[in-house]
């Protein structure tokens, strides 16, 4: 907790003949983070990949293209398949699958091309089908030019202009799609003049296909063929879906097996080798070291050794040490929030545990409603049940945490979907009658709410409480910053850069208390003196530019008033929905009651969605912008254990 898992630098050295067995073992125990070896002037060279590598990656490429064609997505699988069984049937099944898929792909392409050709031809034939000519009459003349295309404008006008050039012509036309399709037969010698006339009417050429017969008949034949092709394509899609259903488990499992084989076979590329030895440069968690040492000893009897270098003593740059979180299971989901920003450096505080408390706290304080809390709880639990793996699961868990605090604050604020729970405006008392047994209890209960967000009297208190939470949170940040600075740059820097802010705030607080008359007036002078000391320390630590940073302490603190403000806006929306429904729609009776219920459902659904998003973003922002900037650097490397998390297969 609060610190990354302790790791040490280690070296694994052994006889080169034992390289592949060693890789097998290291890969299966998933304990080391391998540092890639880069060749230098020394006699060490990077290792050669195993023979399995090229074959396996070849198969993998084939498999992935099949996966792509069948549209198979990674899923969660409960039944694990035996790796050996998969390997035994892999080659034969892959060949068979490959030829089936290629066959399907070919048929699909042929049909697709034919469909496209038909569509193109239909597009061309459609205007021609309106003219009373068979296709062979458009071509093959020596003394006559045939001009076919679209024109805009009156046909009679065009005809008149042509007639002024020659009486020796034939013009056929038909309206089509707000234009006219025409075909014009004129002697060759008049071609240029006629084209010039047609240009004025925005002439657009149509290419007559090399076919014979009546265009309408050809088109209807093509349309029939098109329907047939579409049917064939549908049955092809069914075949693909069948194939997908039949082979999905096999494909996912063999992808995994092949990935593991490739990864293992290519691992030597990351290691250093000499003529007869190999050296693996790696990081290992301190608590796993003995396990690895023993495993290597029992398997290789001293021919492969691991030895540890102390990361703390070695002067190693903190940012190069891989970081593995060390948090209890409950806090794990918050690591997603940390990674979203940046993983902590090895030597700095990992604040996951702190945001485990503050993130749901801020969220709950902002939303604070029993009704929304229970809805979010259900959503979170359903999410957890549906999503077994992947990046969304921690977020579902986080939603559950936040829903719990939301409900707790909902009780403190005594709110349910923006209605009062207790007191004279209690929704229960309204629904059941204030004199009924149940309604009476709620009507006469006045211990809650502790703070009433629905009335106006408690709102200043809520704002002040929010700002005070901000002061506490910010100072927690400064204290953590003090610790981080003390570790990385020494105690003097820590005092000047971080403690100075606390001194400054103390000065302001004393000044304010004195000004408000809570402590003797001399406190005002004292407060100013202390503040000045704080500022001087800060300038000594961070330089003159720090003066520009001074107002941030005020804006940061005021920024926490969003805890009250965002909450009030969501209360405001809920209140507005309820007011519209109960005061404006329900009293009208009849159809308006149904309308009211619809407004109520839609309104509160929208508000729940806003309720998840807005407090989530604002709670996140308070962590990232206000809190983290006080102490957090981030930029640590992920501890990436050498190995593979099997999802579909197991080794018997």
């Amino acid at each position, binding site marked *: 907790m609060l610190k990354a898992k302790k790791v040490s630098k280690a070296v694994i050295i052994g006889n080169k003949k034992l390289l592949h067995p060693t890789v097998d073992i290291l890969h299966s125990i998933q304990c080391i983070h391998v540092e890639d070896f880069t060749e230098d002037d020394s006699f060490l060279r990077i290792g050669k990949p195993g023979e399995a590598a090229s074959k396996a990656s070849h198969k993998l490429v084939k498999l992935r293209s099949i996966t792509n064609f069948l549209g198979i997505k990674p899923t969660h699988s409960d039944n694990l398949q035996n790796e050996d069984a998969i390997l035994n049937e892999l080659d034969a099944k892959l060949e068979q699958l490959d030829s089936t898929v290629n066959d399907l792909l070919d048929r699909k392409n042929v049909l697709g091309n034919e469909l496209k050709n038909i569509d193109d031809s239909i597009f061309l034939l459609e205007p021609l089908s309106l003219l009373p000519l068979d296709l062979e009459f458009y071509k093959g003349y020596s003394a006559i030019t045939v001009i076919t295309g679209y024109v805009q404008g009156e046909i009679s006008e065009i005809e008149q202009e042509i007639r002024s050039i020659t009486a020796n012509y034939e013009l056929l036309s038909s309206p089509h799609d707000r234009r006219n399709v025409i075909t014009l037969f004129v002697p060759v010698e008049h071609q240029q003049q006629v084209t010039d006339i047609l240009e004025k009417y925005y002439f657009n050429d149509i290419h007559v296909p090399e076919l014979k017969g009546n265009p309408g008949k050809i088109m209807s034949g093509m349309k029939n063929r098109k329907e047939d092709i579409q049917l064939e394509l549908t049955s092809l899609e069914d075949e693909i879906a069948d194939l997908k259903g039949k082979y999905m488990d096999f494909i996912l499992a063999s992808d995994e097996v092949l990935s593991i084989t490739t990864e293992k076979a290519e691992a030597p590329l990351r290691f250093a080798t000499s003529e007869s030895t190999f050296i693996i440069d790696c990081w290992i968690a301190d608590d796993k070291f003995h396990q690895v040492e023993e495993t290597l000893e029992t398997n290789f009897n001293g021919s492969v050794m691991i030895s540890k270098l102390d990361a703390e003593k070695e002067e190693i740059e903190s940012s190069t040490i891989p970081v593995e979180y060390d948090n209890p299971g409950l806090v794990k989901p918050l690591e997603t929030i940390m*990674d*979203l*920003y*940046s993983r902590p450096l090895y030597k700095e505080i990992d604040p996951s545990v702190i945001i485990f408390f503050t993130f749901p706290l801020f969220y709950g304080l902002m939303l604070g409603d029993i009704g929304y809390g229970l809805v979010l709880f259900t959503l979170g639990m359903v999410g957890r049940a549906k999503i077994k793996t992947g990046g969304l699961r921690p977020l579902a868990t986080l939603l559950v945490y936040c829903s719990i605090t939301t409900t707790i604050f909902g009780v403190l604020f005594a709110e349910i979907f923006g209605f009062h729970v207790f007191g004279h405006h209690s929704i229960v008392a309204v629904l059941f009658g204030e004199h009924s047994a149940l309604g009476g209890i709620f009507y006469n209960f006045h211990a809650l709410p502790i703070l009433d967000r629905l009335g*106006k009297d408690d*709102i*200043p208190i809520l*704002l002040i409480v929010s700002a005070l939470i901000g002061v506490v949170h910010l100072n927690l940040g400064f204290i953590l910053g003090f610790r981080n600075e003390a570790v990385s740059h020494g105690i003097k820097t820590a005092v000047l850069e971080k403690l100075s802010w606390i001194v400054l705030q103390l000065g302001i607080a004393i000044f304010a208390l004195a000004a408000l008359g809570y402590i003797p007036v001399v406190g005002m002078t004292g407060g100013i003196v202390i503040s000045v000391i704080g500022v001087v320390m800060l300038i000594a630590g961070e330089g003159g530019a720090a003066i520009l940073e001074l107002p941030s302490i005020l*804006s940061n603190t*005021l*920024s926490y*008033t*969003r805890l*009250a*403000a*965002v909450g*009030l*806006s969501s209360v405001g929306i809920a209140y507005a929905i309820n007011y519209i429904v109960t005061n404006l729609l329900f009293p009208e009776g009849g159809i308006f009651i149904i309308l009211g219920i619809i407004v109520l459902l839609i309104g509160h659904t929208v508000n729940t969605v806003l309720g998840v998003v807005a407090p989530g*973003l*604002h709670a*996140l*922002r308070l962590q*990232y*912008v206000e809190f983290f900037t006080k102490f957090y650097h981030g930029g640590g490397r992920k501890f990436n254990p050498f190995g593979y998390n099997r999802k579909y297969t197991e080794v018997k």
Partner: protein
Amino acid sequence: MVDISIADATVEQILANQKGLIAIGAGLAVGLSGIASGIAEKDIGAAAVGAMAEREELFGKGLILTVIPETIVIFGLVVAILLLFL
């Protein structure tokens, strides 16, 4: 519009008038600061999405940078709340 000359107005009318002005002030505080946040965030958001397209892990930083001007509208909201409830 109802024409109220201050000399003839009853106390109730003047109070109602003041209430109306306060509501307009609160509305302006939220509305204008909202527009300001929007203008500031649109550029940052566009740039952040661009950066994310290049490197997806910049989401966290992009989100932070995008929501920084959000404080403007929160201040507006706080001012409005203070106007309405104090």
